[in-house]
Each structure stands twice: as C-alpha cells, then as structure tokens.
C-alpha cells in the first residue's frame, strides 16, 4: 500500500523547525512530529475507549485535529504532551457520544476521591511467578484487571505506570492536580492488587507456610 509514497524523512530537524514547516502545510514534517508519539497516543486512547479499533480511530482524529490547530501549539511546550492531551480529549468525546450514561455513571461517582480505601484482603504475594507470566495467563489477567478499572483510575495507571510519565506531566495532560493524580494512582494500584492477588491464591503462593499466617480466614 504505497499510494501516497513513503514519508519524507526529516531526521535532522529540530522540533521548532518541524512545527514551522508543518504550520506552512508540510504534512511530512507534521508526520515527523507525530511519529515518535504514535504508541503514546494509541495507548492513551485505549486507556479511555478500552478497545483497539476505537483507539485507532480516536488517534487518527486527534492527529488531524492537532494538524488543524497546530498554530495554537506553544513553542516551549512538549509536542508529545500536547498531542496526548488532544487524544485524551478526543477519546472522552467519543466515549460520551457513544455511551453517554454509562460513562458518566462510571466517571463521576457520588463519593468523589476522598473516601478511604481498604485492601480487600491480605493475601501474601511476595514473588511474581515468571512461568505464569511467560504462559500468558498473568498477562491476560492483567489486561482484564486494567480494563475493569473505573476510567479515571485506568487513565492515570496507564499514563504513570505503563507510559512512565511523571506525576506532573500526567496532571497536565489530564487537567487535574498532582495530588489527584497520586490519589487516583493509589486507588488504581490497590484495586489492581485486589483483582490480581486472590488469583494467586490457588496457583502461586498457597504452598508457602507463611501464606496462612497472614491470611487467617
């Protein structure tokens, strides 16, 4: 499939120069800016829409929107942060359009962020069994656990723990405070632990004598 040819390469050019050219309508220069962020925007989109096909469409729409509004990009900003931000907004827009009521009920719970969270149990989980990871069982369990998180926790977990973005950058992208990022990340990680640790029950660590000790019931 080469109907539009391969992208011209601009490997030697700085971000401001690429932005300048893209603003003048050079689409290959624009793609050079987007290319290093492809995975980041796809993952950001999937963190919200939760499926591959929608995530790809959202990423495409976000990139086109970014091209259209490139003049509004501040030269001192990081292009990837800006593009991820647009992608997240686009993904939310899509979700609201598709499943308005469901999303709202998940996204805006009555309780807010403040309620205390207690771990569901205290299953011992000292080691990660590498065989289980290799067999793919754990990978599937992980993906399911991430998919089942409330969207506002899932977004933060994916940006912080998969994309390895800083608390500051995550806050900027999501338009929330750094304190909020930390609180949501705490919830996300503890819920993931709740979802995954009991699964270890039978298979992973029940053979250990100390297991019963920390889990008396």
């Amino acid at each position, binding site marked *: *499939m080469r*109907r*539009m040819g391969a*992208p011209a390469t601009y490997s030697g050019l700085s971000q401001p120069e690429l932005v300048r050219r893209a603003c003048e309508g050079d*689409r290959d220069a*624009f*793609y050079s800016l*987007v*290319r290093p962020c*492809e*995975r980041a925007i*796809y*993952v950001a989109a*999937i963190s919200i829409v939760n499926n*591959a096909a929608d995530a*790809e469409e959202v*990423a*495409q729409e976000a*990139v*086109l929107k970014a*091209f259209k509004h490139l003049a509004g990009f501040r030269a001192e900003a990081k292009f990837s942060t800006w593009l991820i931000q647009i992608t997240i907004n686009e993904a939310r827009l899509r979700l609201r359009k598709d499943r308005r009521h469901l999303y709202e009920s998940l996204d805006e719970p009555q309780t807010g962020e403040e309620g*205390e*969270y*207690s*771990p569901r149990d*205290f*299953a*011992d*989980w*000292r080691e*990660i069994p590498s065989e289980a*990871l290799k067999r793919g069982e*754990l*990978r599937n369990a*992980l*993906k399911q656990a*991430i998919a089942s998180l409330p969207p506002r926790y899932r977004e933060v*977990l994916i940006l912080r*723990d*998969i994309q*390895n973005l800083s*608390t500051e950058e995550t806050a900027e992208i999501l338009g929330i405070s750094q304190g909020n990022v*930390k609180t949501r*990340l*705490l919830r996300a*990680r*503890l819920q*993931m*632990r709740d979802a*995954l*640790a009991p699964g270890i029950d039978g298979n992973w660590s029940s053979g250990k004598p100390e297991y019963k*000790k*920390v*889990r008396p019931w």
Partner: protein
Amino acid sequence: MSVIEISCLEVWREISNYVDQDVAPELRARMEAHFKSCAHCKAVLDGTRNVVKLVADGVEYELPAGFSQRLYGKIKEK
C-alpha cells in the same frame, strides 16, 4: 531512634507514594517500622510493588498492524 507509631489506615493512604519513593523521610521511617511489625501491611506493600512491576513489564498495547501507514495516509489525504 524511636518513631511515632502509624496506623494501618494511614499506611494504606501513603503506600503508593511510598513505592514511588515520594514520602518525606520522617514518614518513611514510620512506615518502615510499621512494615516490620505488621504482616498485613507488608503483604499489601509487596502486592502493590508487584502490580507496578507487572504493569510496567507485562502489559503490552501493541500498535495494530498497519497503524503507522494508515495514520500517515490520513495525514496526507486531507
């Protein structure tokens, strides 16, 4: 050095920041002391660390095949 005791509830509230090494030294010392004496909280700490490690290592969101070409196509077509 004796440290002021901390409750399990307070530990859970800070456990994710602790894993990220984002707690003040004084609180860190109190939490460390707590983990030595509380098997439950130690289990939660280990589990939280495992989650962070697993999520970083084990979750791949591969780009669908042809993603880049289709994206480039969209950029060029409009």
